[in-house]
């Protein structure tokens, strides 16, 4: 599989990544009875300063992919090349050093902040863990700076998470991610738990920070409109595989894979005139179990374009136009 020629090597490059989880039965004697192929052979890369969107429905493996890159999971197979080095098998001190360069923003600002810690302590914790800023005064100053960078009053350092609204908490989560001056941030559904009127504020903040600090994002989300707004390129996952990947506008204006088309058509647009004007047929069926994925193309049982060979042969991703990759043999 080829990808667009990059003049500089990408910051992150994922090759043949697989993450399989064992399924066990029995309480006293555990037996492995199967495996969930959460991520089943994916390739992508992200250039420095770029934002790649990773979209798909629950269970498609997008969060697991993020967790592998953060090395919260050790991948079953494959390489994760970060800035020239394979980090898929790192451990010990080298892993700790790698983790200083990448950070994560979680979905739920209610469960991802420790309710017993003050905001200041939450933001300072990564500095503390990595022994970056032992001087308390300097650390406090850094916390106040991070709060104001994220659009919060620096005095919030003395408050507890429960005193803040959802949008404010998510800003705290972002400030914590920035504390280590990371180059790369995995954003795992960072706005989906927020109220509609607050989402745009946080999206704008993420954009501002990207520009200000030259950040690179992997943006995992199921809200496709936010992805279109924020990402330069988008990869669509289905049952552990990438079915389509392209520049944002190319993917959203002219999706090629039948799953991407179904996914985009399912999203209602906030405009009654547009909605009344289209003939909408939702895709049939539900996502099959990743424990027992369909043979051949994993989407074939639901696919309106499926032909007999789709159930036998797994379609390999191919570059159908420059920079536009599709894993479907029926797409020309």
């Amino acid at each position, binding site marked *: 599989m080829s990808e667009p020629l990059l003049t500089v090597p990408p910051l992150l490059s994922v090759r043949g990544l697989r993450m399989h989880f064992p399924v066990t039965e029995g309480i006293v004697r555990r037996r492995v009875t199967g495996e969930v192929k959460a991520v089943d052979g994916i390739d992508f890369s992200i250039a420095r300063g770029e934002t790649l969107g990773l979209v798909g*429905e*629950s269970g498609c493996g997008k969060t697991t992919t993020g967790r592998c890159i953060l090395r919260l999971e050790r991948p079953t197979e494959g390489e994760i090349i970060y800035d020239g080095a394979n980090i898929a098998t790192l451990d010990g001190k080298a892993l700790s050093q790698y983790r200083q360069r990448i950070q994560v923003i979680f979905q739920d600002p209610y469960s991802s902040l420790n309710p017993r810690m003050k905001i200041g302590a939450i933001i300072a914790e990564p500095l503390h863990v990595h022994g970056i800023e032992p001087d308390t005064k300097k650390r406090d100053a850094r916390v106040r700076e991070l709060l104001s960078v994220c659009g919060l009053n620096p005095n919030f350092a003395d408050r507890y998470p429960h005193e803040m*609204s959802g*949008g*404010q908490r998510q800003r705290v989560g972002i400030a914590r991610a920035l504390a280590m001056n990371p180059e790369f941030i995995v954003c795992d559904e960072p706005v989906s738990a927020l*109220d*509609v*009127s*607050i*989402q*745009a*504020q946080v*999206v*704008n903040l993420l*954009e501002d920070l990207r520009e200000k600090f030259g950040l690179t994002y992997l943006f995992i989300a*199921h809200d*496709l*409109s*936010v992805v*279109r*707004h924020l990402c330069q390129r988008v990869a669509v996952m289905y049952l552990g595989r990438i079915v389509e990947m392209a520049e*944002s*506008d190319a993917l*959203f*204006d002219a999706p090629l894979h039948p799953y991407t088309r*179904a*996914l*985009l*058509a*399912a*999203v*209602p*647009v*906030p*405009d*009654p*005139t*547009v*909605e009344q004007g289209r003939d*909408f047929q*939702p*895709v*049939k069926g*539900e*996502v099959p179990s990743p424990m027992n994925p369909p043979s051949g193309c994993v989407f074939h049982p639901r696919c309106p374009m499926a032909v007999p060979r789709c159930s036998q042969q797994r379609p390999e991703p191919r570059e159908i136009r420059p920079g536009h990759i599709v894993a479907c043999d029926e797409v020309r």
Partner: protein
Amino acid sequence: MPPLLDISDLHTEFRTGAGIVRAVDGVSYTVDAGETVAVVGESGSGKSVTALSVLRLIPDPPGRITAGTVTFAGRDLLTLPEPEMRKIRGGEIGMVFQEPMTSLNPVLTVGRQITETVEQHRGLSRAEAAKRAEALLMQVGIAEPARRLKQYPHQLSGGMRQRVMIAIALACDPKLIIADEPTTALDVTIQAQILELMKALTRDLGIALIIITHNLGVVARYANRVNVMYAGRIVESGPAAEIYHDPRHPYTVALLRSVPRLDRPRQARLDPVEGQPPDLTRLDAGCAFRPRCRLADEGCAVARPPLVPVGNAGHSAACFKAAA
């Protein structure tokens, strides 16, 4: 013809440690037979509490309906004796809630949960009820209904569970279904299936539908009329096309402007609604949206703006600045 449901000046409050929360603060709207009405708003805007008040499902204490009338098919639901009200809940008014896993009973089979409804409301025998349950599952698009009836909720997928919820809501031929965020917990392709199913069923059976949601796209695709709520009040109300193409309340305007659109190339920057959602324990006498409003001036602090007609027929907004 009078509307099927007429909610008039409804007030519901909760007594909390932080003070009295007026979750619903003078809400009026109507639903005609067979029509789909959307109630849009963010968390805490009072959209769900309004619906729960209609069904008298507000936990008391801490909640209490303090004023207003709810007329459904000629009867005032707020003064109806409890046994009569029980006939209406799940009978003439069906309900579909957000989280199908928590609103179905985990220790009863799917079949039992449906037959329970029809036995209670219709006095059908067990055998008749079982037949009805099978027919209902078929109607909501569940394959192999006989097998599914014997299964428990945890054996079904989220989309399937929501189909079961719809089957229960349909069980007694309701005149109205209240769907509170029916697809928020579901994936987007399943959301589309469920909404299309609800649209087809309500259209074919002539059932009125109140759909409570925060998703502006869902409203645009499915609703005839829209009520926008903010801080316990309806701030704008009207036909869906009017609300989207000629919004008059600054909150509606700001909300529509803030959402990125899937069908348009990216804009340079989103234009968010500034500020934080209101704290309902600390509202003053003025307009609740005032702290976030770009048009607000001293006049807005004096009183709550009433909902008055603006623009074309049936369109109203609660804003001193909304030009008539």
